[in-house]
């Protein structure tokens, strides 16, 4: 008797957005606590851990991604206003930005081009399928923009979203070490490289280092999204 009641309740709950949004917040809360306990070890990146927890949970309860996203979309939706909000840290760096806007624009336009060409060329050389190549092309662009670009060029937007997140995680784990290794000291340069490669996640980890690095990373993410929405479809056309 109890069992069938529990099943009824579960059927009801799993179809309601409440479950998706709650498990997202609970998983992130657990992951964030674990991350703080482990002295912010990047291998326990809260995003990786919470995504892993949620995937295991969905598989164990046989819940589809679609059903989960009924609730997840409310968290996902906040990416929009959060992107708009990046104008604030950017504005706070205006005096720095005035001095270096030209070199920032040149670096970002070239950076987006190199990033896109490399992604497509390497994926092609290594024998990835055509659809994977197209889905991987906008991998360094912030999620909402990358999904839009992917759709436009004939990739799979949902695969792109995942590749973007993995790229962001890789960039924020490796980025700072890599930049130190090649002798970059300036926080604004580091921020630009982090934001171009690892978008919002690079910005999140840059914000933890310094407000300046975070602001420049946010700037790079926003400007490279602008450049990418024009350059990526064009480059894809050129590379056929």
């Amino acid at each position, binding site marked *: 008797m109890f069992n069938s009641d529990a099943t009824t309740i579960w059927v009801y709950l799993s179809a309601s957005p409440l479950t998706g949004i709650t498990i997202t*917040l609970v998983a992130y809360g657990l992951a964030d606590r674990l991350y703080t306990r482990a002295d912010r070890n990047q291998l326990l990146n809260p995003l990786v851990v*919470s995504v892993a927890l949620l995937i295991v949970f969905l*598989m164990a309860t046989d819940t589809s*991604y679609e059903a989960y996203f009924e609730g997840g979309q409310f968290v996902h939706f906040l990416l929009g206003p959060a992107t708009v909000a990046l104008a604030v840290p950017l504005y706070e760096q205006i005096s720095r930005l005035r001095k270096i806007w030209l070199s920032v624009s040149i670096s970002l336009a070239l950076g987006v081009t190199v990033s896109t060409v490399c992604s497509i060329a390497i994926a092609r050389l290594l024998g*990835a399928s055509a659809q994977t190549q197209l889905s991987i092309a906008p991998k360094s662009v912030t999620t909402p923009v990358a999904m839009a670009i992917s759709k436009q060029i004939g990739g799979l937007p949902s695969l792109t979203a995942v590749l973007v997140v993995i790229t962001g995680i890789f960039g924020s784990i490796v980025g700072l070490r890599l930049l130190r290794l090649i002798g970059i000291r300036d926080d604004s340069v580091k921020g*630009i*490289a982090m934001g171009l490669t690892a978008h919002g996640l690079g910005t999140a980890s840059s914000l933890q280092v310094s407000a300046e690095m975070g602001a420049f990373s946010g700037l790079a993410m926003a400007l490279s999204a602008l450049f990418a929405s024009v350059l990526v479809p064009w480059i894809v056309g050129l590379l056929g």
Partner: protein
Amino acid sequence: MPATPIADLAGLGFELATRTFFGAIATKQMNFLNGITVLLLYELAGEVTTAFLQLPVPGPVMGMTFLFLTLLLRHKTPTSVGTASSALLGHFSLLFVPAGVGLIDHLDRVANEWLPIGLTLMLSSTIAMVFTAATMSATTALLSKRSAKNV
């Protein structure tokens, strides 16, 4: 549903209720609420502009550009917008979780193509990062030398 007067009445009631309610809590929470409203309005303005002009730029990025220009003209960030912005950006990586869980629908493809996908992501990210940092350092040095000469 031809009950327009009732709908009007309900609308009026709602407005009165929200005014009284929001008027009563004109504190920090109100700041956040005002701030998030501003952010949403800018996002909406961005969406509408890109849709109308058929720009290849996504709405939120356009909204960010508009907000940035507004801050430039106003010469300062309103407290409300600052509060909402730091609340959202403080947990930026949480917002990527639902997209990341999408991996569950692509486990097959990723299992089949994990080597090219993984290598492409790592190699091209490393190249892009080093290239951008190097270009930025070089152009900054070059441009500041030139402007120093002009002075």
